């Protein structure tokens, strides 16, 4: 190693402070440049890697009429399409752990998911090319049944959610039963999905507040069988091989998207045709069934009719029989009557015969009795005579016995008289008896003949009577059976009649039903025919329409923009630091340079020493800076973004191009500055170089002309003042460095203010309500609304009714489109109590009146409209495209607003613009601190027509998340600022001290105390810090403005004011840094030996 080289090497090792100053500045400049420049590409790279690893769809095809396998197959057939995953999607307001969220449900191919593997938490490997948008299972397990679901691992939940919790579906965009097979899902696990890159903005929905809270994966089986595929996720051949979102990637995707767009009319035609065909088939089936049923019914009725007719005929028959039976009966009755009368006459004859007979018998008997009597009288006379005789005989005897012969003789005489008298009597009597007997005999036979005659008549009569009785019995039986037959007939008839009327009723009913069915079928047919007229749009959406991916991409783009500006300052300061440092070095080595020259070294050779020094110093710095910061910054920024984005933060490769350009710039600047510093000295002749350089002459400065001020200044101040302007390079280095430091600090703090203001101003000043109750505009009647009014206003809370609609606004020139919420106040004054409408600058209050719409500031600036201009509002469809006719609204005022875009109108303005009255179905209310939110929600949600109850706290939460990102950015900025301040101030102070060692030593000899010496030197540093910081505050305002406008997202306006406190803090921190440097350098000041003052210059 030559002596010269050794000298070069030693010049480095013997002046680490100087070397470090250059190296650190080069490190900062190059590192920040490289780091920031690589952040954007690294983010995109990480995105690309993540998207490739999870097979994020390159294209998404959405059909407003849904899709079936037929269309999916058509998609598969498109050239360049690699994988196709048809999928279901539906939004639903859901309840989870007691809190309501608006969630988007996606179908998950559970089999494919189970078959996939993910070892590194990022790459999901699967053999199934059609398994697109692969979620990464972070916790739990894949769903085992159709009522299990997977939630986002990102913590968007207001209350803690665990595996096993239940997600309950409350309300969907359409009937939930038509979409899902279940109403509750059990949380089976947590996933990360590249389809949702951005965690703070999941998307828009027509439900609830219009913003999705998160997403849910459910098995395909959880969707109803009739629910068609809503979309298909496609991957494009070779797109994974290209880096998203480079143009090569986009070209590949665009080519396929173009083909898909070309295909889309056929897709929709096929879908319409299919829907019609399916519906027609179904309808035809229905019609056939109807016809069959109708025929059946008719046949049944005809059968019934036939039966009825049969019955009727039978009845008629029965009626005839009955009437013949009646005739028979009446004839038999007549016969019976005749028989009766004959019998009666026979009986009468018989009775008269009997009477005659009895009379005859009477006569005969009386004749016989008379004869008998005569006979008996004769008998009696005889018997009496006999008895008298027997008495006389007994007296004769007696008389004989008593020998009374006279008496006996008289008695004999009397006996003999008696005998004489009685002599013929026994015969006569016998004759009489015989005659009587004959007579009796005759009479008896005569009577018995008559009796016999009578008896035969009687038996004849009895016969007739018996016959008559049986006839009568027969008749009665006949009568009875007739009656029975009649009754049967009657009931049969009634039955038949009721059957008939029933049948008639049925027939009429059936006719009605048939007519109804016919009409329904006709309606159905009309509906089928109308399918052709339905919106059958097919949308082909690439990743730029994926909210998360696009916002990630644009944030990466923002990093590019910031990278283009920020490092400039570091480079500028690096250049100045190198310049001053190397100038000082060259000056210090003046004599050495002279010596080299005297020894015959060429200018180039001598310059090379300094250039080598500069190259080594800046090269080492650049290498270290690039190596560290190009790793750290992208990592750090992505880490910060990971609060918002689910893209895994990956080790980031050093981009050689950027690294080379950063190093080139850093080293180049330093070398240029060095050459500039060395060139002037090298031009001097060796002789003059050998002499000490005349100290830079003191000069009067402008300030001295202000006598009153100058004369009041102490010497230290005068020296300080003069010194400031004596070394212009150092002055600028210090000013720019310190200004940069302050500006960085102010930018960081301002950024924090800006985002804090979003919350503080929007929810503290603009909004004075914290609760939004939305009702279903179509369903909620006035009664329901009144009930809600009562509930909301129960504790005397104020509230305002408004109507809200999502619209798309177009600028008057028809250029850009922006989403906004059109809020129509039922009572403008009431609304203004809740929404502070004022101009941001000046704070002039605005009045919502019929003069037009009051729109939010950012919307106005995006659309480029001012008060008096007209903007056009359109409806939006599900995809966010504008549809229908525009409605012109005049801008009546532009108000301060930070979150989302609004246009506020009065009911009159609304009606004029929209051509229909507004439907006030949303309530803004300010719930007191003490009100139990959950109970309030529950109470309201149980009421008719209430769809959602949302609280601003939830929105505030998502902005707090954003703020965390900013916090870490602020940390980076503060650290960068501190480094900048340290390097610059250290360098400045170091140069000042070494250069003025003599002066300082002299002051010490003169008896200046340490404190006075410190003040003498550091006053300059502090003054420079103050000036630099003051300039930095101004610079910071611009820088913060740049960062804010670059970083601002579409729907949000960041706060525009940097708080006074931030200015104060930025300034104070700069002073603290400067103070720290001063403290650190005090030792060096102390170490300066007074003996120094005795030495000659050099």
């Amino acid at each position, binding site marked *: 190693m030559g002596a010269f080289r050794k000298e070069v090497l030693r010049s480095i090792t013997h002046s680490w402070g100087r070397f470090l100053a250059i190296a650190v500045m080069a490190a900062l400049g190059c590192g920040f440049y490289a780091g920031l420049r690589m952040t954007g590409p690294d983010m995109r790279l990480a995105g690309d890697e993540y998207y490739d690893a999870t097979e994020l769809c390159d294209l998404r095809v959405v059909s407003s009429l849904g899709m079936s396998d037929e269309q999916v197959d058509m998609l598969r057939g498109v050239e360049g399409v690699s994988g196709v995953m048809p999928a279901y999607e539906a939004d639903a307001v859901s309840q989870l752990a007691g809190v309501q969220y608006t969630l988007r449900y996606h179908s998950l191919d559970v089999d494919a998911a189970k078959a996939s593997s993910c070892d590194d938490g990022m790459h999901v490997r699967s053999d199934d090319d059609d398994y697109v948008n692969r979620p990464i299972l972070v916790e739990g397990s894949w769903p085992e049944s159709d009522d299990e679901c997977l939630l986002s691992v990102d913590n968007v939940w207001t209350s803690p959610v665990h595996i096993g919790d239940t997600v309950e579906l409350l309300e969907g965009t359409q009937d939930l039963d038509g979409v899902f097979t279940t109403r509750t899902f059990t949380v089976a696990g947590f996933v990360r999905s590249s389809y949702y890159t951005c965690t703070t903005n999941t998307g828009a929905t027509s439900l609830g507040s219009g913003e999705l809270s998160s997403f849910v994966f459910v098995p395909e089986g959880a969707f109803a069988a009739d629910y068609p595929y809503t979309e298909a996720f496609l991957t494009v051949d070779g797109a994974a091989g290209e880096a998203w979102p480079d143009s090569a990637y986009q070209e590949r995707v665009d080519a396929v998207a173009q083909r898909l767009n070309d295909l889309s009319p056929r897709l929709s035609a096929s879908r319409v045709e299919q829907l019609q065909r399916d519906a027609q088939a179904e309808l035809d089936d229905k019609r056939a069934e109807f016809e069959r049923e109708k025929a059946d019914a008719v046949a049944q009725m005809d059968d019934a009719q036939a039966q009825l007719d049969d019955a009727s005929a039978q009845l008629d028959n029965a009626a005839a029989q009955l009437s013949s039976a009646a005739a028979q009966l009446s004839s038999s009755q007549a016969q019976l009557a005749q028989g009766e009368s004959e019998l009666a006459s026979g009986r009468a004859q018989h009775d008269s015969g009997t009477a005659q007979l009895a009379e005859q018998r009477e006569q005969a008997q009386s004749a016989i009795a008379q004869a008998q009597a005569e006979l008996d009288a004769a008998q009696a006379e005889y018997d009496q005579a006999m008895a008298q005789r027997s008495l006389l005989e007994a007296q004769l005897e007696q008389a004989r016995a008593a020998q009374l012969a006279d008496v006996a003789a008289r008695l004999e005489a009397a006996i003999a008289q008696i005998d004489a008298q009685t002599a013929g009597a026994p015969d006569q009597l016998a004759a009489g008896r015989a005659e009587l007997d004959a007579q009796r005999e005759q009479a008896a036979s005569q009577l018995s003949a008559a009796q016999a005659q009578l008896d035969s008549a009687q038996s004849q009569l009895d016969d007739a009577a018996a016959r008559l009785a049986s006839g009568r019995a027969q008749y009665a039986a006949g009568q009875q059976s007739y009656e029975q037959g009649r009754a049967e007939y009657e009931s049969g008839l009634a039955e038949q009649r009721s059957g008939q009327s029933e049948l008639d009723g049925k027939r009429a009913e059936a006719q009605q039903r048939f007519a109804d069915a016919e009409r329904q079928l006709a309606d159905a047919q009309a509906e089928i025919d109308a399918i052709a007229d339905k919106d059958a749009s097919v949308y082909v959406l690439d990743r730029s329409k994926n909210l998360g991916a696009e916002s990630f991409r644009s944030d990466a783009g923002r990093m590019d923009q910031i990278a283009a500006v920020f490092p400039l300052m570091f480079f500028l300061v690096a250049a100045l630091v190198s310049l001053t440092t190397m100038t000082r070095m060259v000056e210090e080595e003046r004599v050495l340079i002279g010596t080299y020259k005297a020894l015959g070294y060429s200018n180039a050779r001598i310059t090379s020493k300094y250039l080598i020094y500069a190259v080594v110093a800046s090269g080492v710095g650049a290498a270290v800076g690039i190596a560290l910061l190009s790793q750290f910054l992208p990592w750090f920024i992505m880490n910060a973004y990971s609060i918002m984005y689910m893209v895994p933060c990956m080790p980031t490769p050093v981009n050689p191009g950027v690294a080379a350009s950063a190093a080139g710039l850093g080293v180049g600047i330093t070398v240029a500055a060095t050459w500039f510093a060395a060139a002037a000295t090298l031009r001097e002749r060796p002789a003059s170089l050998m002499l000490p350089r005349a100290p830079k*002459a003191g000069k009067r400065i402008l300030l001295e002309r202000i006598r009153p001020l100058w004369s009041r200044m102490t010497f230290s101040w*005068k020296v300080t003042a003069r010194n400031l302007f004596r070394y212009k390079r150092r002055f600028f280095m210090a000013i720019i460095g310190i200004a940069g430091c302050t500006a960085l600090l102010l930018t960081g703090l301002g950024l924090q203010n800006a985002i804090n203001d979003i919350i503080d101003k929007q929810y503290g000043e603009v909004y004075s309500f914290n609760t939004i109750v939305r009702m279903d505009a179509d369903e909620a009647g006035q009664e329901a609304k009144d009930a809600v009014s009562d509930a909301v206003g129960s504790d005397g809370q104020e509230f305002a009714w408004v109507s809200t609609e999502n619209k798309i606004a177009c600028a008057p020139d028809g250029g850009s489109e922006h989403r906004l919420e059109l809020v129509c106040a039922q009572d403008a004054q009431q609304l203004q109590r809740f929404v502070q409408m004022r101009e941001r600058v000046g704070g002039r209050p605005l009045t919502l009146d019929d003069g037009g719409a009051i729109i939010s500031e950012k919307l106005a600036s995006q659309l480029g409209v001012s008060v008096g201009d007209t903007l056009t509002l359109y409806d939006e469809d599900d995809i966010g495209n504008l549809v229908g006719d525009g409605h012109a609204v005049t801008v009546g005022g532009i108000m301060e607003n930070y979150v989302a875009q609004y246009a506020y109108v009065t009911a009159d303005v609304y009606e004029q613009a929209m051509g229909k009255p507004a439907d006030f179905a949303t309530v803004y209310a300010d719930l007191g601190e003490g009100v139990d939110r959950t109970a309030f929600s529950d109470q309201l949600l149980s009421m008719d027509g209430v769809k959602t109850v949302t609280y601003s706290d939830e929105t505030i939460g998502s902005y707090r998340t954003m703020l965390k990102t900013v916090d870490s950015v602020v940390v980076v900025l503060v650290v960068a600022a501190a480094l900048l301040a340290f390097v610059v101030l250290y360098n400045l102070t170091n140069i000042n001290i070494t250069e003025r060692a003599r002066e300082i030593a002299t002051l010490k000899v003169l008896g200046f105390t340490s404190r006075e010496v410190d003040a003498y030197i550091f006053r300059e540093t502090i003054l420079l810090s103050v000036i630099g910081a003051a300039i930095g505050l101004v610079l910071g305002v611009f820088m913060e403005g740049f960062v804010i406008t670059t970083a601002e997202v579409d729907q949000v306006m960041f706060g525009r004011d940097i708080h006074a406190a931030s200015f104060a803090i930025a300034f104070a921190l700069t002073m603290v840094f400067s103070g720290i440097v001063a403290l650190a350098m005090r030792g060096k000041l102390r170490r300066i030996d007074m003996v120094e003052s005795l030495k000659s210059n050099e």
Partner: protein
Amino acid sequence: MAFVEFNDVRKVYKMGEVEVAAADGMTFSAEAGEFVVVVGPSGAGKTTLLNMLGGMDSCTSGTITLDGREISRFTERQLTQYRRLDIGFVFQFYNLVQNLTALENVELASQICPHPLDAAQVLAQVGLSHRMDNFPAQLSGGEQQRVAIARALAKNPKLLLCDEPTGALDYKTGKAILKLLQDTCRTTGKTVVLITHNSAFADIADRVIHVREGRVASCYINPHPGNAADLEW
């Protein structure tokens, strides 16, 4: 007791392992109002003597007293006060603050003293009333040294310490400066200690101290001090 007394003063520097005695038992004294010239070759210990006397360095052993105060026992703070109030220093290379005018350079010193002399007057005394508003760079070497002397005087010190005040000046100017110093001593009665390698200067001294190899070789009173204006070397 003498105004200035050095009593067996030693100053030992440690250079690694080796100890070098820059002052190896110096003993001398001088009275107030004297024009003292310390003479010696390079490396004899003149500057060490000056440093210790000027309160810029302390001795390793021995005692140094000035006006009855033992400065060899002073603390750092006391030494600062000592330099501030009692000592006026004139450097070989003037050590003016480049960014201050002649007047301001003088005021730089006077502002830190409780009883300073008027800066403009002192400058007039040294003959620079017409250059008061000039910066050092605009002045000649002699003029700069005059400013330096004025700066030392303006503090109204007890002792004026001059380290080779003519070293960077041409002969003529050097002589004028010597004259100025001598006159100052004579007219104001200030004690002046002048350090030089030029033994010719001994002629104008009231007291001559020869220093050699860290010791005082001789210390004697010049019975007939010459006038600086007449000095030749």
